């Protein structure tokens, strides 16, 4: 049996076998086992078959063989013969796709000459025109690919074909007419783009344009799981490239596009605007000068009457693109375009502030940032009129409207010429900036407006302030004296102006100073800082006037150029204030400012080169003050919360110190340079006076800032058990106890090596400490348990599976079970000391692990628990869920729903209720199906919690508990959750409840708290807005 026979047999049964047969034939050709002539002969009988299918399959075989034959097996002459043969078969309507494949394969195996290319294309056009006659996409696609390849490799041949026969192009264009398949269209667009860009299309321009514009706008939506991955965007991009390809299209493109701009479909308008912008850029100044005004007349409506913000934005881009294109042409062309625009904008400004004056400002801003030429023209055409209108304006609102335009123009200037630190796209040409001529007038108007207008004109002054800031920023515009005038005015506003309303102007003035410090740091340090420092007393009196000044000053640390100066001045001020015995309140304010500066400063203290300096200048002196007994120890340092602040400042600085420095400091961690052996001090010494325990707060922060390899002042297990004992003392103040407990957590997390982590709890679990013994349980022991577990949870300790059951069993403890339950919230609560920057070990999956280990057991125990202790499980569960990312909860939420619903019935457990409601809020949004079946009980419970006093009798606790009032936070949360239900549940589920919900919500509308009322309004509106289908009674 010949190969072709085998191929035909396999073709329908098993395609891959058929392909393999063809590949074998190709190999035999290569080896010489099979002569080409023989191959052709064998096929002959089938090419003459009556059955079109068989003829097509035979051509498929030939195409497969040719595609599989290696290069150079076929000689030029053979290829020519084959080519002629295949071309002769094109007349046969069967197997066109395979003919094209065969031709493509032949072309790949040896470059064709120009005549060959012409013949191929001519033959195709002659016999298969138009291509849409071939119904199968798989037949048309190879033809299109072939032509695309020829277009890519034989440009000259095809162009000469076009140039020698006048009707070729029109036939060529119409050949593709009516193509609908997206894959084919992608190729068609790419083929047609070549004549568009490179050929002289002459009178065929319109035909060519129509052939692609017929597809505009593309509304194709790819089928789901489309294997070809062609998106509507791909088609849109190619089509847009075609339309924008040649200025010859302009006479057809712009009228057609503007016509479609009237469409009611936003997507069509979007497409039109993108295409206009692309075309404008591509068509060049000569063409564009003909259409610029027509386009302006249409595009302006999208901006003056905004329908969708992004359409207005794109229309602005279009206007800017026209200006940009025209600035490459003659000045006349640009002027002709800009004149009517400026005229219309000037007219709109006359009745500012209106919607259209605002739109005009946008247009001018966009145009003015296009190029230096346009900028100068716009400024020249608008500024005189604007200033004249400003002088004659009779209301402050009108003046504001006009200044808004001015500010936009200055902003455009900054975009174009850049600021003091970087050059803009216009390059170093600021000397020709037309704004320079008007700068004095603008500066005086803006300064005057900010200075002289009454403080209650907030929005007017905000505009002035913004304008001044932009003016200061413009590259090489204002001289230093003028900039100083600005800084001084801003200073006066921040420091001396009376407070008004939300103090928006003051806040904006501070931010402006920060921005100016970015541009001109030295001017700010020289002019603004002395004024600030003058307002900060060395010793404060009764007045609190320093507070806003200090806040503003600390904010300046945001700018890296002045950061160091800010920190230095604050440090010096603090030292002086201590010396002058200033009040504790003032010292705390100064320390807060210092911490704020260090935390928010751009370089952050830790990456700053000055960090060693800060250690010696700031951290060490502060630590010495903490422990000293003489005058350098301010009274404020007797307060634990001040010590906490000190600890935080030191921690920020010490965190970045090298190992040697940390090791040295670690030795003084508890002594703090007191010169007393640490054995006599807390936590080591027994019965130390309360005063001496306070520095433990600072020690905690030091410990948190150390690296994991920093040497501790004693062995870690010993230190842990010492701290456990120490923290059990009843005499400790609350903060010192909490600080000591946190030291236990830090040690367990950072200093227990991985090898020992499984057993590190053993000394505490075993007697004599016996931490988990139910008999010895008391609040302090519970605190220790959770302090240890918190450290282990974060590092995903392997001991957790054995520790958690012990912990859960304590929930049933009749006296302390309640306290244990409350502890669960601490396990996953975010923490400011146990963090990665503090070198703690934090596993990425610790939340998942804890969820998996705890939640199923809690659900299980809850079902079996006595009703008196059931609430403990609900409290514990809420403590865990509160911090659990919702993605973890959502997979397991179904069994939790009954527990959460019962949580809503608890009395007086407001935090638990809030957590439950917040879980429901997330579940309703993400998995409405899960809670939908509980709709009735959920709605009833939420309604119940939406008013201060529940309307339902409490089943378990009787009359006494009815006094419990639902707090506003729970009421608000319940209403917010209830408001989500109509948009996420199926309406047929909800309709039975709608009437009742709407009625009962009138109670919440009259809540005592405004915030609750506003949630009630929103909630009731969504329930009222539910589709009223079927609500006919």
């Amino acid at each position, binding site marked *: 049996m010949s190969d072709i026979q085998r191929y035909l047999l396999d073709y329908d049964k098993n395609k891959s076998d058929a392909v393999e047969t063809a590949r074998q034939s190709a190999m035999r050709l290569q080896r010489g086992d099979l002569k080409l002539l023989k191959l052709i002969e064998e096929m002959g009988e089938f090419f003459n078959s009556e059955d079109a299918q068989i003829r097509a399959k035979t051509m498929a075989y030939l195409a497969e063989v040719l595609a599989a034959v290696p290069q150079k097996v076929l000689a030029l002459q053979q290829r020519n013969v084959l080519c002629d043969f295949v071309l002769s078969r094109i007349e046969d309507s069967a197997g066109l796709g395979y003919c094209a494949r065969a031709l493509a394969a032949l072309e790949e195996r040896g470059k064709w000459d120009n005549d060959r290319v012409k013949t191929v294309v001519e033959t195709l056009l002659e016999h298969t025109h138009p291509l849409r006659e071939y119904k199968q996409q798989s037949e048309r696609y190879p033809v299109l690919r072939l032509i695309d390849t020829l277009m890519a490799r034989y440009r000259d041949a095809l162009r000469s074909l076009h140039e020698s026969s006048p009707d070729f192009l029109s036939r060529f264009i119409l050949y593709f007419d009516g193509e609908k398949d997206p894959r084919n269209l992608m190729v068609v667009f790419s083929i047609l783009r070549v004549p568009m860009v490179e050929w002289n299309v002459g009178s065929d321009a319109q035909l060519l344009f129509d052939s692609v514009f017929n597809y505009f706008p593309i509304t194709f939506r790819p089928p789901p799981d489309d294997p070809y991955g062609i998106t509507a965007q791909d088609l849109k991009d190619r089509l847009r490239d075609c339309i924008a390809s040649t200025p010859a299209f302009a006479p057809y493109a712009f009228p057609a596009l503007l016509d479609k701009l009237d469409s*009611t479909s936003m997507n069509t308008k979007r497409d039109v605007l993108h295409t206009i912008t692309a075309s404008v850029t591509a068509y060049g100044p000569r063409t564009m000068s003909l259409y610029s005004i027509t386009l302006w007349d249409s595009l302006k409506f999208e901006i003056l*009457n*905004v329908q969708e913000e992004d359409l207005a934005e794109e229309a602005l881009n279009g206007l800017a693109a026209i200006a940009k294109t025209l600035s490459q042409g003659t000045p006349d062309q640009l002027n002709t375009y800009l004149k009517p625009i400026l005229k219309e904008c000037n007219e709109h400004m006359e*009745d500012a*502030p*209106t*919607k*259209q004056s*605002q739109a005009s400002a946008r247009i001018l801003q966009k145009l003015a940032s296009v190029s230096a030429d346009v900028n100068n023209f716009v400024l020249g055409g608008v500024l005189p009129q604007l200033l004249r209108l400003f002088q004659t304006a009779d209301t402050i*609102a009108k003046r504001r409207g006009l200044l808004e335009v001015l500010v936009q123009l200055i902003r455009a200037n900054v975009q174009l010429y850049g600021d003091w630190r970087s050059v803009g796209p216009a390059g170093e040409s600021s000397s020709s900036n037309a704004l320079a001529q008007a700068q004095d007038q603008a500066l005086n108007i803006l300064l005057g407006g900010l200075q002289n207008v009454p403080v209650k004109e*907030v929005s007017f002054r*905000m505009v002035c302030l913004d304008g001044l800031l932009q003016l200061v920023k413009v590259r090489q515009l204002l001289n230093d004296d003028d900039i100083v005038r600005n800084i001084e005015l801003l200073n006066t506003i921040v420091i001396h102006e009376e*407070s*008004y309303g939300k103090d*928006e102007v003051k*806040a904006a003035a501070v931010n402006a100073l920060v921005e100016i410090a970015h541009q001109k740091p030295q001017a700010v340090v020289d002019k603004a800082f002395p004024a600030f420092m003058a307002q900060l007393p060395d010793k404060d009196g009764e007045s609190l*006037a320093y*507070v*806003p000044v*200090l*806040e503003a000053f*600390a*904010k300046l640390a945001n700018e890296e150029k002045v950061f160091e100066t800010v920190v230095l001045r604050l440090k010096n001020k603090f030292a002086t204030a201590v010396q002058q015995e200033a009040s504790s309140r003032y010292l705390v304010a100064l320390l*807060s400012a210092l911490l*704020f500066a260090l935390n928010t400063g751009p370089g952050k203290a830790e990456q700053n080169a000055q960090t060693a300096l800060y250690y010696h200048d700031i951290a060490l002196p502060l630590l010495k003050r903490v422990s000293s007994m003489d005058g350098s120890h301010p009274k404020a340092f007797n307060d634990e919360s001040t010590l*906490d*602040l000190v600890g935080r400042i030191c921690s920020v600085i010490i965190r970045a110190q090298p190992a040697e420095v940390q090791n040295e400091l670690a030795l003084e961690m508890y002594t703090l340079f007191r010169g007393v052996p640490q054995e006599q001090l807390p936590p080591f010494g027994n019965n130390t006076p309360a005063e001496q325990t306070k520095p433990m707060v600072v020690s*905690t922060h030091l410990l948190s800032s150390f690296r994991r390899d920093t040497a501790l002042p004693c062995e870690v297990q010993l230190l842990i058990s010492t701290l456990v004992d120490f923290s059990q003392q009843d005499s400790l103040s609350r*903060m010192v106890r*909490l600080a000591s*407990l*946190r030291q236990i957590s830090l040690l367990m997390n950072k200093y227990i090596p991985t090898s020992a982590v499984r057993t590190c709890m053993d000394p505490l679990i075993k007697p004599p400490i016996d931490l988990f013994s139910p008999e010895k349980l008391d609040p302090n022991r*519970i*605190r220790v348990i959770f302090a240890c577990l918190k450290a282990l949870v974060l590092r995903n300790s392997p001991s957790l599976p054995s520790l958690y059951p012990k912990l859960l069993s304590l929930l049933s403890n009749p006296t302390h079970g309640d306290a244990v339950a*409350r*502890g669960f*919230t601490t396990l996953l*609560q*975010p*923490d*400011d*000391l146990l963090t990665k920057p503090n070198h703690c070990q934090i596993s990425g999956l610790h939340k998942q692990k804890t969820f998996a280990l705890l939640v199923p057991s809690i659900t299980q125990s809850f079902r079996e628990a006595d009703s008196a202790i059931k609430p403990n499980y609900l409290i514990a569960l809420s*403590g865990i869920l509160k911090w659990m990312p919702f993605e973890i909860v959502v997979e397991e939420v179904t069994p939790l729903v009954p527990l959460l619903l019962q949580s809503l019935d608890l009395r007086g457990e*407001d935090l638990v209720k809030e957590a439950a409601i917040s879980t429901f809020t997330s579940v309703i949004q993400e998995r409405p199906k899960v809670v939908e079946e509980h709709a009735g009980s959920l709605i009833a419970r939420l309604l119940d919690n939406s008013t*201060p006093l529940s309307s339902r009798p409490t089943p378990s606790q009787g009359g006494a508990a009815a006094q419990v009032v639902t*707090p*506003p936070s729970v009421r608000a949360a319940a209403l917010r959750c209830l408001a989500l239900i109509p948009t996420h549940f199926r309406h047929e589920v909800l309709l039975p409840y709608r009437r009742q919900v709407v009625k009962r919500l009138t109670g919440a*509308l*009259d809540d*005592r*708290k*405004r915030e609750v*009322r*506003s949630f009630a*309004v929103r909630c*009731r*509106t969504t329930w*009222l*807005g539910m589709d009223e289908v079927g609500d*006919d009674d």
Partner: protein
Amino acid sequence: MKASSHSSARNSSAVRWAPHVTAVRDDRLHEHFPRTSPLSALINTMDIDKENANPTILNPSDLPSRRTDSSIKKREDGGTGLFDDLIPSYTYLSDPFERPVASSDSEDGYAEDIDEQEVYDLISSISDPEHPLSLGSLAVVNLPDIHILPPTSPQSPISTVLVEITPTVTHCSLATVIGLGVRVRLEQALPPRFRIDVRIKKGTHSTDDAVNKQLGDKERVAAALENSTLMDVIRKMHSTCD
């Protein structure tokens, strides 16, 4: 209401609503709300003949709001609380084992009564049917034109909310629709102990008496609300309220 009478009310509503409108202009109100025309067509008609296509608009920071109210309590130290967040809210210092001292009673301590500003906040965010702008920024509703009148007698629990609206132009044919939108919004959002009275401010509209008559007539308001096209417009106006 029985189903049959319900449908008859629907059918007659357009007719009942329209004839009371007296001025020539107002015939267009009728055109605006043909019962059969889809909403999109309706909006298109509006776009084409906007009666005031270029209204004056107020800057958001100039609109009255509770926060700029000078009566609000300032921080006593005159600062902005910049340093309040320095100590994160979840520190080692929060101890869940101590019951929170702040009981619900202290939180609920003082009542915040419904005042004019609150009414203003409810209606100023309604959008104008012609422009995608709020009634507040178009100065159609203004805080000084909102009054809460206490109950007329000590026995009565009923207070009255009086809102006077100012149309952007004196012949605005949509004044009635705006008034209706305000009225519906307040009826949905205020507790039932308030009686709601929405009027056109005297002298700001060529036919203010006629419009006021319509807005004050309970029967006619109820009938208008049965008109689904009209309700669609009002729903769209309310969609910007939060």
